[in-house]
């Protein structure tokens, strides 16, 4: 019972941040600001879903002793690590590709990358 409530709370927090990610797609003006909301908030939300599953499988393993819950624990843990590595790599690749294909940050208070590209006379390698 207590386990169910705690896991449910973690999943609610996860749902909250994932929903904010969707909302940010509509509220923010350009591709870069949208990327902030659409890739980062869901990461934090999904981390809470991972925590919920880790906690659930750990408690079930401790109470029942069945090894399938320990296997679940390990696999969810590896999934979380892969998420933490692949998400920023993918976001960086998307942002870089977007900038180099001509999607400028609009509005932008300052654009340091634009100056260097002009002074070098082209796109940086």
């Amino acid at each position, binding site marked *: 019972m207590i386990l169910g409530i705690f896991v449910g709370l973690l999943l609610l927090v996860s749902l909250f941040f994932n929903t*904010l990610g969707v909302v940010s797609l509509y509220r923010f003006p350009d591709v870069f600001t949208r990327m*902030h909301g659409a890739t980062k908030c869901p990461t934090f939300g999904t981390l809470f879903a991972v925590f919920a599953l880790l906690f659930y499988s750990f408690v079930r393993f401790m109470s029942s002793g069945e090894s399938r819950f*320990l296997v679940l624990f390990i696999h969810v843990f590896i999934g979380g690590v892969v998420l933490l590595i692949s998400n920023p790599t993918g976001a*960086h690749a998307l*942002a870089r590709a977007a900038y180099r294909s001509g999607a400028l940050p609009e509005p932008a*208070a300052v654009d340091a990358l634009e100056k260097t590209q002009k002074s070098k006379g082209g796109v940086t390698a």
Partner: protein
Amino acid sequence: MFVFVVSFFTYLLFSWSGSMSIQEVTIAFALAVVISFVSSGSPGSGGFWNTKGLSLRRWWDFLYYIFGPFAMGLAQANWDVAKRVISGRINPGIVKFDPHLKTSHGRMMLANSITLTPGTLTVDVDDNGVFYIHALNLTSLTPTEEDICGVFGQWTRRITE
């Protein structure tokens, strides 16, 4: 050596299902040897017998960094961006700063830390290691390293150099 150890234990973790047999360990060993020899030619790996990545102090520092300063920064930044998504008050722009990192894996680690933290996004890293960061809310047009990534920079230097 680093790639060997990581791939060996990752294979064992994936294939483990309640009990461990000698066949699994043999397959894991063979695959780890193949993977580490293939990847030892890549730039920055330092060859097969390079043990620099296995330093216990670095691994301890890395784990402490992930669960201490990095987790705190992640939670704070998420809360900040969550408020900005709702209120819509943003001041975006691309700024540059030089973290003075020499190694390529140090740059990768700092860039990933910055990108994973909401509100800052690494758009480009040039050949000299200068970072170009898209920030969701700029407080100044020429921010210092502290403004952008807090203590991440000094932790990255401590772990990778």
